[in-house]
């Protein structure tokens, strides 16, 4: 696919907490011509953050992030229309959609995936899935927190984390898993020791270090995935793209019915 001739996307903006237009769209590209118009809508609802961004192929042009674990259904649609309005864009101009596929608490995760899949189908645009832990990892690199191997650990509830380990450049070293924080930290420490590292206490991003500081004593930003990071890595071609289907990692919590109890006394 042809992209901006000037190369990969600009750096994503950080710390934006409300809808804002981050720049004028469709200015002339630095040192080149647009070979293709790109307007990517990115969203992720795998964590308490409902995060949405628009990327025009050169930069993030609007972003909205709100942290509220209980209101994904309420917040997502207004956030999408909000970024479109802030960027002065029409929904028909969207050329592709990117969505965080988790892992994450199922109910919230599905809100984003249902929206992305339906938007893709209704606008007839491709939908690209990216592991939400990878999105956080890209945030670590973008905010200068790389330089050594690190862990991304997000809240999986039930005293567990969703986690994956990354190398200093943000390349994933271990597959996404669900485990207690202590087990996750130990497993990645062992992975690093096998790889010959001296210091086995890897820094950790995501909500994991805030929730489990004993297991993850060294915290790095960001705490949540950012759609701006998601958009940037998809436009830049750095993301591992997967189908836009949920990464649950856990089976449904179900048991066949118990044998019937006697009602005769």
């Amino acid at each position, binding site marked *: 696919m042809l992209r901006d001739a000037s190369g990969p996307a600009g750096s994503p903006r950080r710390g934006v907490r409300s809808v804002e237009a981050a720049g004028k769209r469709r200015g002339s590209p630095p040192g080149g011509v647009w070979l293709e118009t790109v307007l990517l809508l990115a969203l992720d609802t795998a964590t308490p953050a409902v995060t949405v961004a628009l990327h025009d192929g050169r930069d993030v042009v609007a972003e909205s992030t709100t942290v509220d674990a209980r*209101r*994904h*259904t*309420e*917040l*997502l*649609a*207004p956030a*999408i*229309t909000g970024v479109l309005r802030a960027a002065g864009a029409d*929904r028909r101009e969207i050329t592709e959609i990117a969505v965080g596929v988790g892992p994450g608490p*199922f*109910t919230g995760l*599905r*809100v*984003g*995936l*249902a*929206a*992305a*899949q*339906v*938007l893709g*189908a*209704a*606008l007839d645009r491709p939908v690209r899935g990216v592991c939400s832990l990878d999105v956080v990892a890209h945030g670590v690199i973008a905010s200068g927190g790389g330089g050594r191997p690190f862990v991304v650990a997000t809240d999986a509830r039930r005293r567990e984390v969703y986690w994956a380990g990354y190398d200093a450049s943000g390349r994933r070293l271990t597959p996404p898993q669900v485990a207690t924080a202590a087990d996750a930290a130990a497993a990645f420490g062992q992975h690093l020791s096998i790889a010959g590292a001296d210091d086995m206490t890897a820094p950790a991003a995501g909500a994991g270090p805030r929730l489990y500081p004993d297991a993850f004593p060294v915290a790095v930003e960001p705490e949540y995935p950012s759609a701006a990071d998601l958009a940037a890595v998809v436009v830049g071609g750095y993301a591992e793209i997967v189908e836009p*289907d*949920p990464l*649950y990692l856990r089976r*449904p*919590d*179900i*048991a*066949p*019915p118990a044998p*019937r109890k*006697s*009602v*005769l006394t």
Partner: protein
Amino acid sequence: MAEQPLILGIETSCDETGVGLVRGTTLLANAVASSVEEHVRFGGVVPEVASRAHLEAVVPTLRRALTEAGVQLSDVDAIAVTAGPGLAGALMVGVSAAKALAIALDKPLYGVNHLVGHVAAEQLENGPLTEPVIALLVSGGHTEILEVDDIASSAQLLGQTLDDAAGEAFDKVARLIGLKYPGGPHIQKAAADGDPTAIAFPRGLTSQRDMSRHRYDFSFSGLKTAVARWVETAERDGVPVPVPDVAAAFQEAVADVLTRKAVLACQERGVSTMVLAGGVAANARIRDLTKERCAAAGIELRQPRLSLCTDNGAMIAALGAAVVERGLPPSPASFASDSSLPVTQVLV
């Protein structure tokens, strides 16, 4: 006359993913994907399994509905979605999908009440209703008597089950007598060879005292326990359980109490039309007894075909069409699904 607006309805409150297309009271498409097979081995609907299935089914079901109706998405004038009541996680999939669709099409979205949707479905079968109507809704998820004074804006709950839904009672009793899930069709089949008068099972909340406090309410837990006690006693005494008789007598007890109270509601509220809907309304004995008692009481009984009785998207589109026709305002973009949405809230 200009063509009526094309309404697309999305339903995900329980284990059916439904997308329907409707113009006014004309049915154009009713596509449903059911996850019922996935719940069979658990003997009931598992919410997380249902929610996962909804996400997998929502786009394929949407495409199927459009093909069935022979229309394009760009032809759609408005979208309606079940806002509640139902399973919280399941509702969210439909609401999120519907909101995304409203954004993609730039069309108004109406979050509507699932229970009133069941009543609106009848308009797709036999044309516009003349309100007020009494609705008897019986399914695996709900058992209610509603009075609908205006399909688009005014409904009230007269009575409901205090414990199990009628469909759940069928499922649990089926298990007790060694029949499969879902219980409704299996009990009906077994009952065909049985004697409904063979065993006198109790009619919940019909005693004089209960009729003053719970006049239009239902309770099936006592009935379920009575069946269990009867079966266990037979087993303990080494008597083979006459499955057809137990099924027939149980089914008769449910049909009797449902229809008795619904007819009473019509008579006491001065309402001359009854709508029978919900998946359990597929039960032949409940249908027949309702027909018989309505005829005897001079009540017009209306009931849609089975595919419009069970949960579906067309019923939501039908209610959406009524709301659009009335010119009511769309739901705000920030509306939330509500697993216990009261029936008085037809539109959120």
